[in-house]
């Protein structure tokens, strides 16, 4: 049980690194988690109400509301018009708004971009696959469902049936190839 000075230094360093990482994470969160920005036109940003970082749920509610009244383009405009529309979360929201509006290619472009930059959350893989399927990029959809399946198998986030669900979707897509 006797600890050497060296060991103490190592443990302290680990703790400091963890703390530093935590502080860095908080700072990143506070800045909106931006990794890249693809802002919409400046005129759109002026035309739509802006939602602060801590009001993002209100923004989502507004998007849902617009979709509920059939104003899909309004939902897209609202998201594109946000100052932080280039943020990862905003990009995902925008992709879903495009998809809901039937603009699958635009939606898929966002997913691909996020995926290529390694910023696409694993939980979004099935959504990307679904969009790829509707964009008739069946092979991409199959591949993405397979990745989603791998993630589901390794994560408690999913139910046991989800793997079977992905298998079903993959099988259906393979019929279309």
């Amino acid at each position, binding site marked *: 049980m006797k600890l050497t000075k060296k060991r103490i230094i190592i443990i302290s360093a680990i703790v400091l690194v963890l703390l530093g990482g935590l502080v860095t994470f908080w700072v990143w969160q506070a800045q909106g988690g931006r990794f890249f920005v693809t802002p919409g036109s400046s005129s759109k940003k002026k035309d739509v109400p802006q939602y602060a970082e801590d009001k993002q749920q209100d923004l*989502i509610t507004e998007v*849902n509301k*617009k*979709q*509920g009244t059939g104003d899909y383009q309004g939902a897209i405009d609202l998201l594109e018009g946000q100052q932080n529309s280039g943020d990862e979360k905003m990009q995902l929201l925008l992709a879903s708004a495009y998809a809901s509006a039937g603009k699958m290619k635009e939606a898929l472009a966002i997913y691909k971009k996020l995926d290529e930059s390694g910023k696409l959350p694993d*939980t979004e893989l099935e959504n990307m696959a679904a969009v790829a399927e509707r964009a008739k990029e069946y092979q991409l959809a199959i591949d993405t469902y397979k990745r989603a399946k791998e993630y589901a198998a390794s994560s408690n986030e999913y*139910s*046991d*049936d989800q793997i079977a669900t992905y298998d*079903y979707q993959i099988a259906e897509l393979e019929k279309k190839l």
Partner: protein
Amino acid sequence: MKLQLKRLTLSFAAFVMMVSPLVLFAEQAAADMCTVNGRDCWYGYFTGRYDGGPGVRQHNVISPPALLNVNNVDQLIANIGTHLGCAGGRANAGQNGTGAAFIVLTMLGYAPGTPKNTACTAFSEWVATVRYWAPYTNYNVFYNFGGLNTRSSYDDVAWYPSAQTTAWSIVFYSPTTGLPLYAIKKDCANPVGRLQRLDRPRNYTLTPNVQNISPTQIEAGAKMGAATRVTNNGEVNSPATQWEITMITVQPGKKAPHEDENVTFSATAPCQASGGGPSGSYFQSADATCKNVSKGNQVFNRGTTSLNVSDVDIGDVPVGTRICFTLSVQPRANVDTRWAHSKPICTTVGKKPKVQIWGGDVAVRGQINTSTSSKTVDGANRVFGSWVEYGAFSVGVNSCFASGSGLVNTSSACDNQSDWSKLTFANKNASGADSFGQYVAADGFRRLPNVASFFGAIQNKQPVGGSVDLGSVTFGNNEPIVVRTAGNLTITGGGIPIGRSVVIMATGTVTIDGNITYADSAIGQIQDIPQAVIIAQNINIKDSVSRVDAWLVASGTTNTCYNFTGNLTSNKCSSVLEVNGPVVSNKLVLNRTAGSGTGEQSGDPAERFNLRPDAHLWSLLQSQGSNKAQTVYSVELPPRF
């Protein structure tokens, strides 16, 4: 080393202290997230049991392909219905039955703990609900549900926090706000996000209808009823809805407003009179007045609801007036706040003509069957009917025919016949109970006065034929009797002067085509009394004749009004006939429709037979002329009570 260990422990504790609030905060957030649906996370909706928590991988609510192929309401209903099963009223066991029940019940807003099988009884309601919400449902939308998902443990469903926040979903939106109310992730059928009950559809349509009115044969002052019903053809019961039954009184020969239309819709209320709803009187017109006779406010369940009204006093209205009933409801449907008015169902006020016999008895070898009219006159209940001034004798039953002028100022109807049957023979049966008529068997009944035999025995006969004015064929009362004989004969009428008489004996039919009247002059002696005797097989009296001062003796039929076509109505034979003299007939047809008016005239007769003293005195004269007093009959009367 103790210090070093202490430092390490403190460092670790500091780390733990820094991280633990984040972990605790996450759990608390997850718990709050789930509680909005009535259960904490990981606790089953049906059983309330903990299902293992986030460390246990559960299952999708419905197995693959779940709702992936559901793209409209019909497919949703088919999918959920198939999974639910409900054979014998029991939801299928296992994952899919449980999941389908969960969807049905949570969509309808049933509280956690509701038995699965309730989904079976509520399934039709759920079907109606999702159909109603179809215009506000998107079957293919990328919905951001905020990371609240569900999982199945095969026999239960629990809420889970989820890192996934967006998925292809079926989303039911509020038609007013556009906000999502209920959402299902398609690939797993997991209801996601905060689930809100979908309001039951309120599609309903109410159709009012008058089934029947009763009685259909009525007279002024009658009390009527109407059987009506409201049919709800909608998917749900109506909310509280006002209804009114309206009576419409239509002038004779006219129609009620909208009588020829089936159910009509209007913002105008049926009738404001007598407490009806405001905003107009749909059933009021220049020819018709209306009156609310019943109203209410109630829920009309799906199907049919009966609404009846009875004992409605139609009022003392003239004959020919039409009485109609109609039913109205408002609002008539969930999408229409107007009234729905049924087609008015009508009947025409008729009358019960009455006969009065003055100055004598009535003796009938069959039944005496008449009726009474009950009505309110000047605020008092009154009963009117047919009556004889003295005795009423019958072999058969006497029904509702008064004796002893018993119907004067009475309020007793036919079921209290004893009140006005003091000279009815008999008015008690052998056991002493009230019983009217059946005085004696036909064999023992009072004998007919044989008038024909008396005058037939007279030798002084002179024939007449064709048409004759009685005033031209008279003989003086101080002279021998002259009997005028004929086959068929038409009497055009005639005035019988003072001191003269006439006797007609016809083997066929005598038609009386004009009034026969005795001279209205002062009479100083018995020989001055004018009198006419008509003896025939049949005696027909025309509708235009209002007075016959004569004896009427028919071996066949005496008809008080014979010259009408078609069915007898209140517009035919509508003048009063007064016969002054004895009437003897094998059959008496009382076709007159006069009288039975309104108010105090409600008891006025259609025919009045008046056996006046002049007939008795003239008879005495004739018997004296023959130097003999003829006993026509004698009978011993039973006691009268």
